[in-house]
């Protein structure tokens, strides 16, 4: 009698003793738990939360409508009064309340970030999933297309797209979104390829799980985590790119919709007399970008190690 057989018989089919019964905890819930204990991610989330609140309640928070230029006469030819009790952030070169414009500007920036990343995600995920799942010719075609898009420096590409589409908020969002498409597509394809070869996909195929479930239930959720991290970080980039476009004069031409980049663009002439007009929108940009970056980095740490097991 062999060794293994002897053990098989002595142990028999007795089930092992019942272990402790765990409360059902999901993978995402675990990741959430780790994220909560990551101090910088919490700070980042707080910053984002603050900006979201500002964006939502801008009409209540802002002392003046963002396009009200009624203080022009009060400028008295001097540009531009700095912070005062009446106008905490001072007055801009057209006599508008700077605080109100920055508060309203949060709306524009967050809107651009969310919409453009959504546009990029939608098409990027579609292309990446197709390429990573189908392989073959579809993969080659999609990835060469992505390579072409990636060949352009992203900001230059966005400038070109805005020039092509014309100025406007929607055009900016589309341009920044399109720039993100190849990034997400390539990322998802890569992780799809890795997941495709995983044992659990083979195991699922070996028991006859249909292909649409293999793709949507087995592959996509496991391949998605790096894309989620990238999407959070892309929000930060989108805010910077929108501000950059605004700074270059390719921003939203509607002066009643304040945008931080455009506000910055108008300041160089007054940099000596009114530095606050440059500093304050700049601080707003930096803070919001910092928030998304902190959360993105925290997410990366929270999600990645678990999925590698």
């Amino acid at each position, binding site marked *: 009698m062999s060794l*293994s057989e002897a053990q098989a018989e002595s142990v028999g089919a007795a089930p092992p003793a*019942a272990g402790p019964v765990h409360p059902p*905890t999901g993978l995402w819930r675990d990741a959430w738990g780790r994220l909560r204990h990551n101090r910088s991610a919490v700070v980042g989330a707080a910053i984002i939360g603050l900006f979201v609140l500002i964006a939502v309640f801008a009409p209540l928070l802002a002392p003046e409508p963002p396009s009200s230029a009624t203080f022009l006469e009060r400028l008295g030819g001097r540009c531009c009064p700095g912070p005062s009790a009446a106008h905490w952030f001072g007055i801009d070169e057209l006599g508008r309340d700077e605080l109100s414009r920055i508060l309203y500007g949060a709306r524009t920036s967050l809107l651009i970030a969310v919409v453009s990343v959504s546009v990029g995600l939608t098409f990027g995920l579609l292309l990446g999933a197709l390429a990573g799942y189908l392989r073959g010719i579809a993969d080659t075609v999609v990835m060469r297309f992505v390579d072409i898009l990636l060949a352009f420096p992203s900001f230059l590409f966005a400038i070109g797209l805005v020039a092509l589409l014309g100025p406007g908020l929607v055009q900016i969002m589309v341009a920044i979104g399109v720039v993100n498409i190849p990034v997400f597509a390539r990322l998802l394809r890569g992780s799809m390829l890795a997941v495709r070869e995983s044992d*659990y996909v083979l195991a699922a195929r070996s028991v006859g799980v249909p292909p649409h479930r293999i793709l949507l*239930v087995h592959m996509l959720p496991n391949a998605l985590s790096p894309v989620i991290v990238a999407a959070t970080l892309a929000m930060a980039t989108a805010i910077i790119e929108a501000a950059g476009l605004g700074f270059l004069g390719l921003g939203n031409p509607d002066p009643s919709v304040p945008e931080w980049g455009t506000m910055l663009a108008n300041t160089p002439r007054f940099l000596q007399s009114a530095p606050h007009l440059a500093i304050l929108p700049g601080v707003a940009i930096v803070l919001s970008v910092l928030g998304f970056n902190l959360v993105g980095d925290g997410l990366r740490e929270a999600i990645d190690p*678990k999925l590698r097991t």
Partner: protein
Amino acid sequence: MTTLLEVRDLHVQFRTQRGVTHAVNGIDLTLRRGETVGLVGESGCGKSVTALAILGLLPAPAGRVTGGYVLLEGRDLLPLDETDLRQVRGSEVAMVFQDPMTSLNPVMTIGQQLTEVLRAHVLPNRRQARRRAMELLTMVGIPSAASRLDDYPHQFSGGMRQRVMVAMAVACEPKLLIADEPTTALDVTIQAQILALLRRLVADSDMALLLITHDLGVVAGICKQTNVMYAGRIAETGATGDLFAKPRHPYTVGLLRSIPRLGGARKTALVPIPGAPPSLTARPVGCPFAPRCPRRVDELCWRLPEPEPVPGAALGQLAACFNPVPQPEPTASRP
């Protein structure tokens, strides 16, 4: 007993960047209904590839079957398209893989993964599938199955996960279960539990089991028939008892000599087989075992030996050897 699975002259090749690998070179296998058959051999001899080829799961586009038949109850599985194969997988032939730590989807609960199999084949109703999943977990020996259905794989130990994998594989009562090194990644005590589980499942149903392993002890324990593979070919096949008592192929003898035995004479050293298995990138010329073979006959072994009955061997014992071992080697005999 009627024949369930017949593999005839199966050839599998892999196209790699360094050329074509001849992973399986003409394998014959026969399983009767309810029978447990072992397929043993060293790593890389083509055991797992054979199993994947039977289920049509070879990694495309590199791996492909280049010849032979896989007949399941007389129906050739090789020409089937993906849709038809999907009906076969899980409901007629299912598979248990080597590493339970990576074979379960980490973002799905155990219950989701079990019901998925059931709903794909036999029980489209969600509630019924869940109830059946619970029965299955109980059947494979997982305590408090009802509450564990909503657990995720990382909350299970390796042995428990392998039980879940077995439950998934037998969920739709397949006629054939292929277990590819089901115990290799597990602790020795857990190995014994999983083997006992497999043996019980086979005994309680008319499911046949093709057990792929490199562990001769496992084969001796539960397989009726044993096939010894070497370099993508069958070296020797026969009833397990005959094969272990009177191995006729020099490779089988070498394998048996290289395992330690409890209670054996202490001074008998283990005898390793010299050399390494041949590279499979070249099409085999002559006996693949010849370079390592102590009984090599240069005038004969330039040809490829086919498994043939050996004079004096038991009925059904075939050895692919021109110069088979004449009598039981003392070290290979069992007390």
